[in-house]
């Protein structure tokens, strides 16, 4: 079986600091995969390298068996990306952003328009489709970003913190869309540190800590008989339990 994503010894350093220390990330095709880890574990760096936005210092990346960096033609048409930080074309309206993105991918304008209208409806953005993205709220930005990433019907979707700062209603919409998408056999990889969400959605988990993958596999194998949160805290070596110091904190009964 060909994995949707496979890296071998993927390595990146920024100056003295090793951000990603030679990881072998594996995501089977058709899975809803979660990439979890504490802040600074290297999740964003990994996703940036896998999607061709950051040049790795070493290692191999394959998506559907094609090398991302030596064979971009076979890769780029088949991936969708929502990077961190909601960096979108701010001075386009939501609809224009989708049209631009679709045309950039070589889809005929009429088809792009049809898909954009449907996506806007499902994402509940019809009312604000003609407002500039710069005036969108965080949840709206995530939704329009996801719509833009889905527009060309990619095989593999990479999402960096898609649920961060999103209100429950919008999050529910995002989840519904992603569930339908993976049910058809496409692959989603998303990074998060909300364990409940990962546990609820994912069937495959990779746990990163300090630039390394410390556990990887089907959800049930990684968490065994614990909750994912407990397994995660154990894997990344949780520090301190917050019981020392801070004696002054809290209301006193004296």
């Amino acid at each position, binding site marked *: 079986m060909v994995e949707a994503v496979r890296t071998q010894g993927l390595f990146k350093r920024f100056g003295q600091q090793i951000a990603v220390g030679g990881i072998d990330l594996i995501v089977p095709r058709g899975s809803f995969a979660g990439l979890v880890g504490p802040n600074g574990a290297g999740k964003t760096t990994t996703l940036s390298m896998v999607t*061709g*936005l*950051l040049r790795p210092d070493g290692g191999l990346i394959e998506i559907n068996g094609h090398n991302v960096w030596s064979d971009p033609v076979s890769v780029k048409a088949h991936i969708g990306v929502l990077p961190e930080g909601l960096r979108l074309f701010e001075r386009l309206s939501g609809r224009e952003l989708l049209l631009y993105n679709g*045309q*950039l991918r070589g889809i*005929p304008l009429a088809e792009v328009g049809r898909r954009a209208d449907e996506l806007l409806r499902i994402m509940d953005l019809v009312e604000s489709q003609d407002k*500039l993205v710069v*005036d969108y709220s965080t949840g709206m930005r995530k939704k329009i970003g996801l719509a833009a990433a889905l527009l060309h019907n990619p095989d593999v979707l990479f999402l960096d913190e898609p649920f961060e700062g999103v209100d429950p209603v919008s999050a529910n919409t995002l989840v519904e869309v992603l569930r339908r998408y993976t049910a058809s056999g496409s692959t989603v990889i998303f990074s998060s540190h909300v364990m409940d969400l990962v546990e609820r959605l994912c069937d495959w988990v990779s746990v990163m800590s300090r630039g390394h993958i410390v556990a990887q596999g089907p959800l049930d194998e990684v968490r065994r008989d614990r909750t994912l949160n407990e397994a995660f805290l154990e894997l990344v070596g949780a520090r301190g339990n917050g019981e020392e110091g801070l004696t002054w904190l809290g209301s006193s009964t004296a």
Partner: protein
Amino acid sequence: MVRLFVRLKLRLIRGNLRGDTIKQLGFVFSVIGAVVAAVAGFLLFSLVRLAPADVALDIGIVAFTLFTIGWILVPLLAFGLDETLDPSRLALFPLTTRQLAIGMFAASATGPWPLASLIVLAGGVVGLASGLGGVLLGLVAVVLQFALCLVASRAVTTALSGALRSRRGRDLLAVAAVFVVLLFQLPNLLLNRGLPGEPSKLLESAGSALRWTPPGLAAHAIADGGLIGVADLIVVAMVVVVLAWLWIAALRRALVTPDSSNQSGGSVRRSRIGRFLPGGMLGAIVAKELKYARREPRGRISWFTAIAVSGIIMFSLRGPGGWQGPASAIAPACLAALMIGLQAANVFGIDGPSLWMNAVAFATDRDVRTDLAGRHLAIAIIAVPLLTVVSVVAALIAGTLPWALVAALTAWGVLGVALGVGSVTSVILPYTFPDRLNAFSGAAPGQGGQAFLASFGAMLGTSMIALPVGLPILLGAYWLCVLAVPYGLLIAWAGRRLGASIGFNRMPDLVAAVSRPT
């Protein structure tokens, strides 16, 4: 409270400099600049003493007024440099409005430039005062004038701080900043064309008009030194108090008014240019660039600046000592083309952090070439009619309309060359446009050198490559202008090819270079 705020300000200045050599250097230069300005300003102002008393008074009045205007305008244009300017940051602390007002007043008086302006104002005492009364009243007047500057500046920024934090407000201000910069060019232009009247007449009328404004009253009080001076100062003091009261009222309102920065703006009209554009990637990029030229403040600014500078060039090249004959039409048009072409020296900069969206879609260097071509086409759609107008106007000013044809053809050619050179500099020396717009900086912190090299390199490269065709035309081989457009198209095409093959391999670095935090 005063000491606390002064220390807060000093700490903010220090914290801002920590670990950043370029900022530290910048600060050192700023301090040196302030010291030089203080000393020079003080001395110059003292020298006013040598002038006849009434002229000296007029100079003093005008100078004091200019100071006040400067104090109001500069913090507005450079809003964001000073965190103590934004009252909403302090809203959560348990402070009364009065404490806040006194504290912010103290904080805004702290720093090299406020101290420098106090020293320069003190020069007015040396320059204008006569006798002991003048000196005594002068010292009071200088302090009052300084307070007037601070309070006026604070009152305006506080009243506008809500608007300044909203997106539309900032967009508007960015464009306004350019107007102000151009306004400073106006005297220059007038001097070039000869003043309408005698400078001394001008000074006298300005002096008598401004005599009754608060800064004018302060200056007059120093020169007068008697009872009228005291009366002047009482009026100034009252104005300061009223302004301070207004400021406190504005402050109180700003603290409880919701942050308007998250209110969404209105809808945009769906554009209809799309149907005239080619389909596919090329058309998408042209449409996006045209929208950005209209909606992004930076786009508006650069086009507006290009037009204004072309106008200035057109008028200042005229007259004795300037170009004669057809060259007086060709040279302004070519300079305008160069100015517009310089916008393309960092074409990816306007996308900023959103460039990744193109980067994840581009699979071959052909895609990058299409991207560059789309951007060039968008620039050309605006620039070609513009250059035509410039050529016609320049030819009309020069006196012979047919020269417009030569001028326009040559200018279009120069534009092509500039675009070609720009596609290479865009991929070799990309840099981030700063997010917070102000009229005084062109690049993200730490990329100033890169930005300078890119625009200087583009200018030099364009001039060099345009020379083989441009120089003979300027020197009189006018028939060569039929070659200008093909030559420009050729260079633009070659530049796109070279730029795309370099740029495609550097795409991740390019995205990183234009997405720097600012």
